[in-house]
């Protein structure tokens, strides 16, 4: 059964009233991989995950986890999936140790085992010192770690992580990434959501990009990035009316069109190689086109979105209009 998918979801649909939050999403997650779901606010990431975790009824479509039907056998699914939600789901009135003990007992571990596991997890997540303090004194990062630890008590073969690093500082974020990689080494499969392309890039073997409840792309992070270039040259022309001329220069040099942004005289040039930035700048100088500012940046989620959907990732007004 080595080729059995960890998650096989076909044509998932979720309606909230007459608003369709998830509109026919397919997700096939292989065993042992980290699968990323990438999308902006309101794309339907959390809703999709909650349906797969039996926290929301599936309105239409079919989902299986390790061959178990999500709709028909929710109790089995709950034994196979560890869920770390977008917002910490731990008990604020208990201490960290009490939380872990409670969740272990609820899952049928005998009292002494529950105590040992709680201790082990606290140590592994660097929470021993704070173990017996009330959670109200916990920082966001500590809460997140406790939340993740709570999902690992029975070593579930599949782990859902909904935006595991949103709101964490860069160092804590790196630690969280290491932890996630460790889980895969232990044999778990991970389905995570994120708003950051670089996070998907760092962690995920494959990525599905979703937008307004639909999957718009699915590929390896490298392949996704190559659609928008390895990096981007952001140009501000001194004179906005030169835009068309500058675009010609870029096309001639790189064989590709720059992405024009709504601001006049501004354009993003996808670069296959950061070295080519110099070529573009020299080309513009030779054509006599003035530049007011210039920078080279990694492609952002927004650019991936622009390339994939033709609209920006945080285009809220457009989203409202679409409802």
């Amino acid at each position, binding site marked *: *059964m080595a080729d*059995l998918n*960890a998650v096989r979801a076909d044509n998932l649909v979720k309606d909230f009233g007459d608003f369709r939050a998830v509109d026919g999403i397919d997700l096939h997650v292989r*065993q042992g991989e980290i699968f990323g779901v990438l999308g902006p606010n309101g794309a339907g990431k959390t809703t999709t995950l909650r349906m797969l*975790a*039996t*926290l*929301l*009824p599936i309105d239409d479509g079919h989902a299986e986890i*390790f*061959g*178990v039907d999500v709709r028909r*056998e929710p*109790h*089995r699914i*709950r*034994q*196979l*999936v560890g*869920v770390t*939600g977008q*917002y*910490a*789901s*731990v*008990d*604020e*009135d*208990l201490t960290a140790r*009490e939380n872990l003990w*409670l*969740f272990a*007992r*609820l*899952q*049928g*571990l005998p009292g002494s*085992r529950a105590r*040992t*596991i709680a201790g*082990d*997890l606290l140590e*592994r997540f660097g929470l021993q010192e704070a173990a017996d303090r009330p959670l109200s004194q916990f920082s966001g990062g500590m809460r997140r770690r406790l939340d993740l630890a*709570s999902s*690992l008590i*029975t*070593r*579930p*073969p*599949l782990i859902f992580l909904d935006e595991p690093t949103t709101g964490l500082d860069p160092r804590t974020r790196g630690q969280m990434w290491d932890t996630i990689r*460790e*889980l895969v*080494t*232990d*044999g*778990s*499969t991970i389905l995570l959501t994120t708003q950051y392309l670089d996070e998907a890039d760092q962690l995920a073997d494959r990525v599905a990009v979703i937008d307004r409840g639909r999957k718009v792309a699915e590929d390896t992070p490298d392949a996704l990035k190559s659609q928008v270039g390895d990096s981007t040259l952001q140009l501000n022309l001194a004179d906005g009316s030169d835009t068309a001329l500058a675009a010609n220069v870029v096309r001639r040099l790189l064989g590709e069109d720059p992405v024009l942004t709504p601001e006049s005289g501004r354009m993003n040039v996808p670069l296959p190689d950061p070295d080519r930035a110099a070529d573009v700048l020299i080309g513009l100088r030779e054509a006599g086109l003035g530049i007011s500012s210039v920078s080279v940046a990694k492609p952002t989620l927004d650019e991936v979105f622009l390339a994939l959907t033709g609209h920006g990732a945080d285009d809220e007004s457009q989203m409202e209009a679409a409802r």
Partner: protein
Amino acid sequence: MTTTSTMTPATPGSRRIDPPAAVARTTPHSSVRETWVQTLAMAWRALKKMRRKPEQFFDVLIQPLLFTAMFAFIFGGAISGSVSDYLPVLIPGILAQTALTVCMATGVQLREDMDKGVFDRFKSLPIARIAPLAGPMIADLIRYGIASVLTLATGLAIGYRPGGGVLGSVGGIALTVFAGWSLAWIFTWLGTMARSAQSVQGISMMIMFPLTFLSNAFVPAETLPGWLEAFVKVNPVSHVVSAVRDLLNDGAVTAEVGWAVVGCAVVVAIFAPLAVRSYSRKM
């Protein structure tokens, strides 16, 4: 159970997770024994919370003291001729009223609790849907117990001498606790249905006042107008009050006691499944 591998802490280097084996170990439902363990774990959580928030006990402590003394001295003369004659009528009534107040708090607190993030985890864990509801109700048995004993103690302090003796008193308190626990399922159901803790509070008040005051808790039913007497006689609280009176004052296990127990069991049989169903739907 041969689930030792799932119970090994997930430290690097420990045995690799084997998904097909994990699938094979899953069960379609929580067994009765597992459900009981889960319910006790939830009761433990509720007890921890009680100990950390003792202000929850205010209603349990104040109401028996205040109402027993107040009602006895205000209504005693008017209704029964004297305070000491009224106490055998009043004390069982106050017991029932206090139990209902504690019930109401059960529903309101459950609603508050359910809005917290941790309930997302409870829902994502393989636990019986009744455990998060039944757990706090077990912990509440303590509150019913404290409230009943306090009421009786206040009664004793102002001159009440239960004719049923120690056994009758224990029986009366046991019945009060059981009735409170049973009726709490109504408010638990409300808690799972309502939109907010405030609305639970509001609806509960509307149910509780007629149930306690349109009963024989404080006045004999015979003194009421006919239509009111008819309601008072079918009100389950009246039966509980009569049964507690029989136990406390006469030490007698009468038919009323039987009816009260049956009535409470019926309430549980109806409202426990309703509450579990409405809780499971809310996901």
